[in-house]
């Protein structure tokens, strides 16, 4: 008996296919290209590949189709998250190129780009997952490559230590995640996200629907995803991994795996477990509060800027979780078009993630810029930067102020939408705590600015040129200033996240 196979529709998966092709091309070029040409060719190819994938996103926008028997979904959420991930990938390559080539005893640049591309591919596949299995496999692909990248400066013990902690806790989280998925599968009989949603809706009886097996699965999923996105109390690996990893890797892993984790969270909690909304919303709200509070308060005592940014990234996870907690879509998740209910929560989360990408990678890029010039990454290394290099100091100021959330910059708009969504969802206490904790965060963000402008420089920085890094920092500064002005367009795009997938196309695919 011959198997009758359907040819999947590769057209709607074009960005993912491009990144896959990029990864394979990088592997082959790394093996067969002349060593002297590695830097220029591989960097150029990576930048070009991610840019091409970003262009291909245009074709995916508004398609809302699924293929691969419902395993792959190209809807608004996919497009927006892919935009975030691909921007982060381009910026990471810009930050990484000269660092990998010159610092930490020169790391193999080919393998670096290959692993980066696979991590990006994993994150992209997570955002486009239409099935629990794809969510899991995508997260794993993304994380596994990131574990290796964390240990990339393997001659430095702190890098290996951070990677080991990240790896052990990461696979532990994966085990919990897959256990939760097993429970959900056991209670619904399907791994298809929409199928789970439909099945649970059909089973819900009465007002106070409390099903122990579903709740256990939900809890395990939240714990597993919490690890991946570094929410308190599952954040233990974050400071060591962020601190130990080479700085460009830190910039990358503070955004892309986090974006993948948030995409998975939206897919799983909103799309599949939307009918259990009442059960997880309170949980997420509490998680958001303690994450924000812990991240911001502990960051105050850090003198190592990378560690400080690690805790700040935990705090930003908390802000994004506020957006998720403010979700107020329909009972059946994606199927009925939640956008009609006027949900503000998820669009605010998406917008925040985009803003966070430009702010956070920017901050790490300046740290990398300083390392190129012989400095370390404690606060003292920033002293007097305004005298020795006013432009870098100005860039760092923009990123710090944006991370803090001060009006004309991107970070402000992001926080504004999150707070608005929280108020809209009657979570006034959560909105207030975002404001209060932002004020707390001013202390450690502005301290960096103060050190740069009011202290005397200790040492004269070493003269060196890093053109790609400079362009990247400049682009991120511009993005932080300008993107806020176009936030209306971006939120429009973000609000299309839940446009229902074209069911006819899905049926035609043999689902």
């Amino acid at each position, binding site marked *: 008996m011959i198997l009758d196979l359907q040819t999947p529709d590769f057209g709607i998966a074009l960005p993912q296919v491009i990144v896959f092709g990029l990864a394979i091309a990088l592997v082959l070029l790394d093996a067969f290209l002349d060593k002297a040409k590695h830097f220029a060719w591989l960097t150029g190819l990576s930048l070009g590949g991610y840019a091409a994938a970003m262009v291909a996103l245009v074709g995916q926008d508004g398609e809302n189709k699924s293929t691969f028997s419902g395993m792959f979904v190209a809807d608004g959420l996919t497009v927006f998250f892919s935009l975030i991930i691909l921007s982060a990938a381009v910026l990471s390559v810009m930050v990484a190129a000269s660092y990998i080539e010159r610092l930490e005893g020169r790391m193999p640049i080919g393998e670096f780009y290959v*692993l980066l591309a696979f991590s990006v591919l994993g994150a992209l596949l997570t955002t486009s997952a239409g099935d629990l299995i794809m969510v899991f496999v995508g997260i794993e692909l993304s994380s596994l490559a990131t574990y290796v990248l964390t240990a990339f400066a393997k001659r430095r013990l702190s890098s290996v230590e951070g990677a080991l902690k990240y790896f052990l806790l990461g696979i532990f989280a994966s085990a919990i995640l897959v256990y939760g998925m097993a429970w959900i599968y056991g209670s619904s009989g399907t791994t298809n996200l929409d199928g789970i949603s439909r099945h649970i809706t059909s089973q819900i009886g009465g007002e106070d629907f409390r099903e122990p097996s579903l709740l256990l699965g939900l809890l395990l999923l939240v714990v597993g995803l919490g690890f991946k996105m570094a929410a308190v109390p599952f954040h233990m690996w974050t400071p060591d991994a962020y*601190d130990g990893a080479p700085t460009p890797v830190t910039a990358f892993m503070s955004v892309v795996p986090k974006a993948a984790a948030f995409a998975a969270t939206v897919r799983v909690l909103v799309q599949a477990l939307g009918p259990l909304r009442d059960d997880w919303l309170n949980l997420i709200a509490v998680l958001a509060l303690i994450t924000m509070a812990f991240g911001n308060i502990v960051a105050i005592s850090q003198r190592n800027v990378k560690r400080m940014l690690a805790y700040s990234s935990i705090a930003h996870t908390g802000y994004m979780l506020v957006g998720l907690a403010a979700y107020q879509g329909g009972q059946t998740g994606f199927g009925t078009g939640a956008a009609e209910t006027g949900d503000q929560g998820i669009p605010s989360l998406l917008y925040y993630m985009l803003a966070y990408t430009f702010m956070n990678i920017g901050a790490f890029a300046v740290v990398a810029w300083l390392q190129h010039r012989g400095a370390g990454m404690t606060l003292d290394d920033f002293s007097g930067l305004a005298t020795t290099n006013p432009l870098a100091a100005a860039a760092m100021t923009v990123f710090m102020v944006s991370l803090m959330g001060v009006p004309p910059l991107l970070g402000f708009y992001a926080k504004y939408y999150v707070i608005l969504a929280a108020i809209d969802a009657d979570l006034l206490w959560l909105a207030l705590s975002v404001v209060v904790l932002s004020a707390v965060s001013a202390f450690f963000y502005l301290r960096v600015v103060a050190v740069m402008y009011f202290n005397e420089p200790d040492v004269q920085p070493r003269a060196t040129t890093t053109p790609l890094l400079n362009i990247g920092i400049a682009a991120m500064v511009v993005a932080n200033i300008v993107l806020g002005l176009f936030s209306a367009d971006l939120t429009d795009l973000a609000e299309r996240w839940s446009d229902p997938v074209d069911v006819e196309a899905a049926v035609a695919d043999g689902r």
Partner: protein
Amino acid sequence: MPWDVIIFYLIAAVCITSAVGVVVANNPVHAGVFLVICFLNIAATFVMMGAEFLAVVQVIVYTGAILVLVLFVLMLVDPDDLPEFHTARPVQRVVGLLLGAILLLEVGAAILSRTVTGARGDATAQNIAAAGGNTQALGRVLYSDYLLAFEVVSLVLLVGVIGAIVLALPERLGEQISITRRGTISLGHPRGTDAALPAGPAGETPMVDRETPSPTPEPTTAGGRTLIMVTDPDERTTVGTRP
């Protein structure tokens, strides 16, 4: 009680006992052996559910390959040299037991009181027989419905291979592995000589520049032989007696 139920309970009992054994065994090799027994019994439960292919794959892949390599590593570990997981840190032990017990209770409660049931799939005995057997039915599903996941899993393995090579190769790839290396031992690896690295800013230390020559290291003696530690990991140290 029918025979298959009795056999199931027998297998389950051995499985759980050996799983507990993995955790409580003091000797890591014993823990590994318990894991082998546990996995074999899981394979047996697969057989009882009519999934022979999965059972055999479980044996070939997990017990036959992965655990062999796990034991390979464990056998090289001196059991007297391990951190004392079981005696030290009583607080952690108690908290761990408590959390485990709570999870067990939750799982038990969830199993006993569940009302929602999953929809039955179409993998009925007739459909499997129509496909030509268990293996064929599995292959069909794997290469049609789950094609994308299957391919992505192979990418995960590829990344694993690349990562292992990147982390395990001792030198910068392909460079500098020359004749001078033979018969010499590099003591410049940070694992051995972390203290000998130059004190830089706390945290991340940019490695020593390749271009500038490192300062001449102080010779030290160990066991009657002169060792020269180098701070740059790319340089090598000759072990031997010096005049």
